[in-house]
């Protein structure tokens, strides 16, 4: 139903009428605001912002071209990829938004439930179906949840927004433990099932999700989710929006009591699920079947590596292990040094669509780190892919390096921001570019306010922009990490003024290079070995810092 262009176009028509009524004065802003938010339209600092869901980060060339068209026709020629597999358009005019929604509907995309206290865009491992070591492709499950949760009548007015992430890989790139509900597909004794985590989240109260169900049989997923959402819908606090997320419900009730309530509901709900959900899941598995990966010699890849140092540098940083021999996962960095993290122009989106068609089996993903990914590329196609990316200004060889900075829009766009984030990311990238290769994998994540959309708690180095005494102040956290053993970074100490934060981070990176035992020792391992003290010393070495 949701991919049904007619349904989505009806929704767009409905919104067109609402926009017209707002513009002719029949609707007040108070009346209109919830309607526009239901369609993903926010009013930000400088303009409206349309947030479009890219379900579980999966894109096709047609969808990416539609996004490129939208950016070009109705925005300023670029889009911003977020940390939750959404794309945001920063400059639409109100009157144009229904046309934008129509264009999205043509390719089965929409902005429904990208705002409000509903179940938001379901995210998933961006390497789904491709990553080495995968137990199962999470996308059929993510799609089943999307179908179930979109327009679900009971869950349109939850106590607060609700985020679900799914992974099918032991290496958790979907950051499931940072979601209200995290689903990990696992196998035990030859049977497939789910480990369900609940109550994870970042924001003002960062919490690592706790195990709610250790091993849920495959057939029980939807009734179980319905039970969890039902329990939360009733128990979640509506008196205080800062205490309304499920993480607070769990903290207040205790996980045992919440689990007992979920199980009570589950027992009542289970008989009503007679297998239609499983039939849909079976169909979805067919829909998400692997493309027919080809067998071909890979000598040209080896030759290009030897002959072209620029290609080799890119291959060394931007490729990841594929489950199939002869193939690779290619990360397209949207982090040109000095650029805006996550931004791509219309021309770049079209270039990626073309390259995916040519070399990537028509499959494109949006990562949770604001990069794009071609999940299946034959090794022999990589040199040509790289050349195409270079021509499009998309061949920055820094995936996973210190210049691959995750940053929310901060006060350059976001009305909730307390400080800027993008310029800080740009300056740090410029300052650290010279040591990026030497430093290896080192993550910096920046948020422009306590809401933590830049996932600063999960960076080796996290930066949180705040306001202190009428000026921007940047707090540093150390030792965070996403993934299966997610950890929340610890605050290093007092904040830094805007003109102090970049040198402070440079000192921190320098301290890591000096302190690590060898180039193979990751930042997290070094800090675990030395303790935070030498890093904190380096950070505060020579500043009269702002308090």
């Amino acid at each position, binding site marked *: 139903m949701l991919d049904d262009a007619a349904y989505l176009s009806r929704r767009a028509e409905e919104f067109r009428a609402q926009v017209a009524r707002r513009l002719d004065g029949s609707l007040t802003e108070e009346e209109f605001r919830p309607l526009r938010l239901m369609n993903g339209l926010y009013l930000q600092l400088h303009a409206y912002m349309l947030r479009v869901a890219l379900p579980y980060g999966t894109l096709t060339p047609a969808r990416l071209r539609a996004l490129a068209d939208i950016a070009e026709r109705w925005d300023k020629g670029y889009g911003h990829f977020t940390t939750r597999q959404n794309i945001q358009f920063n400059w639409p005019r109100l009157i144009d938004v229904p046309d934008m929604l129509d264009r999205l509907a043509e390719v089965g995309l929409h902005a429904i439930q990208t705002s409000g206290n509903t179940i938001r865009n379901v995210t998933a491992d961006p390497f789904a179906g491709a990553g080495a070591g995968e137990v199962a492709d999470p996308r059929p499950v993510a799609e089943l949840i999307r179908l179930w949760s979109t327009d679900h009548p009971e869950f349109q007015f939850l106590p607060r927004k609700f985020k679900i992430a799914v992974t099918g890989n032991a290496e958790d790139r979907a950051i499931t433990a940072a979601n209200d509900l995290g689903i990990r597909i696992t196998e035990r004794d030859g049977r497939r099932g789910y480990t369900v985590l609940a109550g994870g989240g970042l924001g003002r109260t960062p919490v690592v999700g706790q195990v709610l169900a250790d091993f849920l049989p495959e057939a029980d997923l939807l009734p179980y989710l319905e039970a969890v959402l039902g329990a939360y819908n009733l128990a979640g606090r509506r008196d205080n929006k800062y205490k309304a997320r499920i993480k607070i419900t769990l903290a207040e009730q205790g996980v045992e009591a919440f689990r007992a309530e979920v199980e009570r509901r589950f027992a009542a709900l289970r008989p009503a699920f007679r297998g239609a959900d499983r039939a849909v899941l079976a169909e979805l598995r067919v829909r998400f079947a692997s493309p027919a990966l080809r067998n071909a010699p890979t000598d040209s890849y080896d030759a290009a590596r030897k002959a072209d140092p620029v290609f080799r540098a890119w291959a060394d940083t931007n490729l990841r292990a594929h489950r199939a021999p002869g193939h690779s996962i290619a990360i397209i960095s949207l982090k040109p040094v000095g650029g805006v993290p996550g931004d791509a122009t219309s021309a770049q989106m079209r270039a990626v669509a073309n390259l995916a068609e040519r070399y990537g089996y028509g499959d494109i993903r949006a990562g949770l780190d604001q990069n794009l990914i071609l999940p299946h590329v034959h090794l022999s196609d990589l040199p040509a892919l790289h050349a195409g990316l270079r021509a499009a200004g998309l061949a920055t060889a820094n995936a996973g390096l210190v210049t691959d900075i995750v940053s929310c829009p901060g*006060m350059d766009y976001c009305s909730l921001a307390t400080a800027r984030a993008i310029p800080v990311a740009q300056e740090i990238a410029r300052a650290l570019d010279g040591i990026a290769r030497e430093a290896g994998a080192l993550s910096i994540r920046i948020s422009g306010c306590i809401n933590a959309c830049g996932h600063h708690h999960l960076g080796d180095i996290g930066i949180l922009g705040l306001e202190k005494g009428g000026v921007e102040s940047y707090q540093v956290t150390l030792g965070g990490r996403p993934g299966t053993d997610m950890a929340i970074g610890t605050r290093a100490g007092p904040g830094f003024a805007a003109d102090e934060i970049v040198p402070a981070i440079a000192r921190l990176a320098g301290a890591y290079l000096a302190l690590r035992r060898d180039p193979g020792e990751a930042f997290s391992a070094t800090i675990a070995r030395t303790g935070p003290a030498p890093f904190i010393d380096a950070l505060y070495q020579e500043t009269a810092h702002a308090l």
Partner: protein
Amino acid sequence: MAKAFHPGFVSANDLATGRVIYRTAEGRWVQAPEQAEFITDAGAAAARLSAAEAEGHIAVGPYLAPARPGLRGPEPAHFRETFRASGPSAPARVSWGADHA
């Protein structure tokens, strides 16, 4: 205790475009902050805000933004307002063209 009054101007977002706008002494909405009416007392602020609220067909979310006198007229007195007035500090577009790696 009531919050101390801070002088300012009335700002909002334009309904049709979302762009930042300011209210002049004549009750027009403009994009240049220096043309805004500089409001220095709480009574005038309340009156102007209620007038602005009634102009919901033009302006969304009017509020009194902190300002101070400047050479050409009032100017923003808080960094958030400075960014609202000047637009994003970062160039909005990433570079398009060949890499020079």
